[in-house]
């Protein structure tokens, strides 16, 4: 089966600073790929490249086997993207934000769709509230709803659990599982290994911009992944304390 979303030899440099090297990934329909790794390993940069919002310095990003640059607008509309920033307007209400995005995506029955998604993320009682009064968790749930508005076949979720309480996490987990079962290709970036292991069919560990390990979650337990991840991150710390210069000095002395 052709991967819904794939990368081949993707690398990215900002000036002389190399952020990603030779990244090969595949996300198929009905699967969730979980990406994790230490801070600064290039996860967000890779997510922006997958979302077609950042050009890779080398390599290609493909949708259904086609380089996305062959039909950028059509492909971009197939992506539902949850980024670090909410991409919401504080002076608009939750419903107005969703209706605005539904409008520019050309979603039919905008009001009904907005209402349906507000119920899905348990924000229906707050639909008339301006987003600027929302807590971090409520804003995050509304961003999840925004990413789902146009029912895209590819979902890119960068740290979807950030700022969420236990019930919020469950809501977002249920949504991700439901979307995967509906045949969506889901790409998840998170520091929460437990949730990543629960949701993902494959886990990928990114270290220093390169893929360090891949795990099939059906055959590798959470404990094993966690132990290896700790070994990698401990190794990082040793390298810094031992004189490595990959981090700036304040971060290196914060252990």
């Amino acid at each position: 089966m052709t991967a819904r979303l794939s990368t081949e030899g993707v690398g990215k440099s900002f000036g002389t600073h190399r952020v990603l090297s030779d990244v090969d990934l595949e996300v198929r329909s009905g699967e969730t790929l979980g990406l994790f790794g230490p801070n600064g390993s290039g996860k967000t940069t890779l997510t922006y490249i997958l979302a077609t919002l950042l050009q890779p310095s080398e390599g290609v990003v493909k949708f259904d086997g086609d380089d996305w640059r062959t039909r950028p607008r059509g492909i971009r509309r197939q992506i539902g993207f949850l980024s670090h920033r909410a991409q919401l307007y504080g002076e608009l209400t939750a419903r107005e934000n969703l209706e605005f995005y539904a409008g520019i995506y050309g979603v039919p029955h905008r009001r009904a769709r907005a209402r349906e998604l507000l119920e899905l993320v348990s924000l229906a009682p707050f639909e008339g509230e301006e987003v600027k009064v929302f807590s971090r968790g409520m804003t995050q749930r509304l961003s999840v709803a925004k990413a789902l508005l146009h029912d895209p076949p590819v979902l890119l979720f960068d740290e979807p659990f950030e700022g969420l309480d236990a019930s919020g996490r469950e809501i977002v987990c249920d949504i991700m599982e439901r979307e995967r079962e509906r045949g969506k290709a889901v790409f998840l970036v998170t520091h929460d290994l437990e949730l990543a292991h629960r949701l993902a069919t494959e886990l990928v560990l990114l270290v220093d911009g390169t893929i360090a390990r891949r795990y099939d979650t059906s055959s590798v337990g959470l404990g094993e992944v966690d132990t290896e991840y700790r070994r990698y991150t401990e190794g990082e710390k040793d390298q810094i304390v031992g004189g490595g210069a990959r981090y700036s000095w304040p971060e290196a002395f914060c252990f």
Partner: protein
Amino acid sequence: MARGILFLILKDIRLQIRSVDAIAAMFIMGLLVVLIFIFGFGPIITKPAEVAGVVIWVGLSFSAVIGLSRSFEVEWREEGFRAFRLAGLDPGAIYLGKVVLNVVMLLLVALVLVPVTLVFLDVLRPGALVLLGVVIFMGVVGLSAVGGILSAVSSQTRGRESLLSVLLFPLLIPALISAVKCTRALLVGGTLAGAGNWLRLLGVYDLIFLAAAFLLFEYVIEE
């Protein structure tokens, strides 16, 4: 494209109404400039119809700097431009949406600044008001067309309003001189006689900068 522009404009108008601060700052800045001119130089102005145009356009230009940078800053702050690109919106449509918003806001400011200037300087010419409206509209389109693309660049920076002023005013010189000349002709003689070339220059300026910015806007917001 038209649908995208419409939704962007409606969203921006709603944001302006709710947040108020941008439009209020534009009114205050414009009025302040106009009133300083009128009360500072009023007693020594012997030919008020000759200078009223200058007063109006200086006030509108300062208002434009404030409105333009605010209208783009919100999109950079919340990654609106990225969201619009993912929605497949044409970058030109995004640009036109912002230009229309700024034209509307500047026309609202002009609705206050122009009568205040004309009344206080006692140069009101009812017969020239329609043509004056046309000149104001064309000048405001020029301000918004150039300011739109420059503020998209400058609003990503920390000193966005000062950078926008540095970039904007040199490029605005042809539009501002044309607009002032046309306004002066109307307020002195009641017609555009003698200012036809200035009006044509203003029209050509608007078209060139609208077209160029429409085509170049993609490179401003793509990363």
